[in-house]
């Protein structure tokens, strides 16, 4: 075949192609959102104050304290939390070939909720003063990863994605049932905190948690990006992927592990945040106009960070200083998008 002179696709110059354009646009918006999240809050500061506060240690001024201890951790948490949820959602949508799957479909949030309900609603942990400040985070971590291990163990046995989907749903129901029983017996004062936790929020991230979030999540994201080639092959279904040289068994576990680890980490620190993981991958797919995961993984992360930051900004400023529940804002964002996309049949998997 003499093909060297054939007109191949992708022959446009790099900068005029769609993904680089969208990437730079998204990047700018993310940066702008990060700045907005630092600059805007229920306490008004002038740009000069903010500028000065950034140059000083946190203890130097009120502005410094609020910026360094509240706004910046929260902005980072929202950005990366959104990114991780979006990446987890993308993975699971590919894994299950189902466009309306989100990162919580495997019961991760239910597992976290279960363990948190133990901590918050019962007196089991009263004596554990050593862990006190991190207790519910640790519990959520344990719950999310406990469910993940069970799901992985089952995934190793069953073949079909649909079976696993149902297993995840059932896990969710089981955990939900236990939480519900605990709630019924709990004292009202304790329920208060639990109900709040269930709504999810990027409020109150500590720097330790941010460090953990960035280190582990970043490592997983890099690992994921390196897996975008088999992920692309996986778009054709497991059988084609296997015939193209993907070690399916290992790869399936890897996808689930990454998705659960990302979603579990965010959930344990911020509570369940709805809809980002489900809606953002679609938004990324449409805006980049591709299913190529080499583009979509970073794309969905940027998009997820952007959407989560925006929702968080709305949640904490619209009625400031009253804080609106984050999941309510993300639902306002996500649900119409998912419905519109499905109705237009633009999104298929």
């Amino acid at each position, binding site marked *: *075949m003499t*093909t*060297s002179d*054939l007109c*191949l*696709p*992708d022959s446009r110059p790099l900068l005029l192609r769609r993904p680089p354009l969208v990437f730079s646009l998204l990047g700018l918006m993310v940066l702008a959102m990060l700045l907005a999240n630092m600059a805007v809050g229920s306490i008004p500061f002038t740009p000069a104050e903010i500028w000065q506060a950034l140059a000083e240690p946190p203890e130097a001024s009120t502005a410094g304290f609020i910026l360094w201890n509240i706004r910046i951790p929260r902005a980072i948490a929202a950005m990366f939390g959104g990114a991780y949820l979006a990446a987890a959602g993308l993975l699971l949508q590919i894994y299950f070939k189902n466009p309306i799957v989100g990162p919580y479909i495997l019961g991760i949030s239910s597992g976290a909720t279960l363990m948190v309900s133990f901590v918050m609603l019962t007196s089991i942990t009263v004596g554990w003063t050593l862990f006190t400040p991190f207790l519910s985070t640790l519990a959520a971590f344990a719950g999310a990863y406990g469910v993940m291990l069970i799901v992985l163990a089952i995934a190793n046995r069953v073949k079909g994605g649909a079976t696993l989907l149902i297993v995840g749903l059932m896990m969710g129901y089981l955990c939900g049932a236990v939480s519900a029983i605990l709630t019924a017996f709990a004292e009202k004062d304790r329920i208060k905190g639990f109900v709040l936790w269930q709504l999810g929020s990027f409020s109150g991230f500590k720097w330790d948690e941010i460090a953990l979030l960035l280190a582990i999540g970043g490592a997983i994201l890099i690992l994921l990006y*390196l897996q*975008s*080639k088999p992920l*692309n*092959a996986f*778009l*054709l*279904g497991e*059988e*084609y992927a*296997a*015939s*193209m*040289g*993907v*070690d399916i068994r290992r790869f399936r576990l890897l996808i689930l592990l990454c998705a659960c680890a990302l979603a579990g980490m965010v959930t344990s620190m911020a509570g369940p945040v709805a809809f980002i993981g489900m809606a953002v991958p679609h938004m990324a*797919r449409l805006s980049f*106009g*591709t*299913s*190529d995961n*080499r583009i979509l993984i970073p794309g969905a992360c940027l998009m997820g960070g952007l959407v989560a930051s925006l929702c968080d900004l709305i949640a904490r400023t619209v009625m400031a200083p009253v804080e609106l529940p984050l999941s309510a804002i993300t639902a306002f964002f996500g649900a119409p998008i998912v419905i519109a996309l499905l109705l237009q049949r633009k*999104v*298929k*998997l």
Partner: protein
Amino acid sequence: MSATIDQPVIEACDLSVGYKNRPVARHLNFSCHAGQFISLLGPNGAGKTTLLRTLSRHLPPQGGGVRVQGRSLESLSAMELARIMAVVLTDKIAPPLFTVFEFVALGRYPHTDYLGRLGTRDRVAVTSSLAAVHALDLANRPFADLSDGERQKVLMARALAQDPRVLLLDEPTIHLDLKHRVEVMAILRDLCRNKGITVIASLHDVDIAAKVSDRVALIRDGGIVAWDTPETALSRQAVTALYDFDKAEFNRHLGGIELRGAGDRGRAFVVGGMGSGALIYRMLTKKGFTIATGVVHENDLDCFVARSLGAECVAVGPMEPIDNAAVDRAKTLLAACDLVVDCGFPVGPVNEANLALMQAALERGATMLSLRDGLPPGLRVNKGDTPVLFTDAGHLIEALETFQFHRPLPVHGEEVQCIP
């Protein structure tokens, strides 16, 4: 044919395929060589797909083993296998937002780097794969928008982009229209001839398989009944047994399957010969007539078709003039028939006797439908016994639709009026 026949590309030794506790086919032994087109034939559920899936390692063998280019299938890494073998499955896949080029490029998986970036060689391979399946013009179309036929070609291009030595295809022509069915088979045959790729495809069209395959495997009753050239393997009996034919028959001379009718509309005697009868036989069979025919020659197309359709056939040796004994036998058959159809065969020295046969029929008062412009020379016609003349087979069919089994045919007059 760039084949070194020495080492088989794929070799199965005492292979058993199936699922846990449910073997589908056992003790299979065969070998596939470079550049061979191998068709797997057999009824549904016989294990064609299961065998393909075992060869592609989607299913573990339940016994025995497979060797690929001399190495055992299990010992190959996924990547090594992917460089040797590509598959085209029946699963309907429609990954969103892929152009055809990008889709085919996924086939380069075993050859690209860890991020799957395409180099010049990869682009060339993708383009030539698209060219090989005549789908270069589709390159920039969205994959999800393709028709079934176009999609099948693109799926084959994806498999080709893997640069495989073996191509496994599961029912590659299913759901396709005739144009694409023919095109796909032609493409596959060319791949064997030009690139020396071994194609193993499960097919359901025996006739097409017979025409393109180098080898056919007849799979039935948990084993391979035959593994041979189609010319040897696809005998009438073998095909009938393979598919449990009852109302049909495969004819290897015709290269196709003839469907027998119910035979409950009545008996028709067809005076044919020189290929004039084949169409009429099939038509009458389709309409439910039982057929008798004569007198034809053994090497005549009419003879093959009539026999495949289960007609009673009076035949004489090739090139021999029709003798009286044959005519007498034909007359006996004719006597038991409800109508006589004259196919309008050209009359020559060897088949002149058929005119006598028709003469005899007319004299008996039989209803005769004829596909001629006018009466054949030498046929004497009494008043009232005129054959009904039709200019083409279509009108003949219409007449048959309303045919009533009374002698003589009551609708004579009207039928004549129908003739344009």
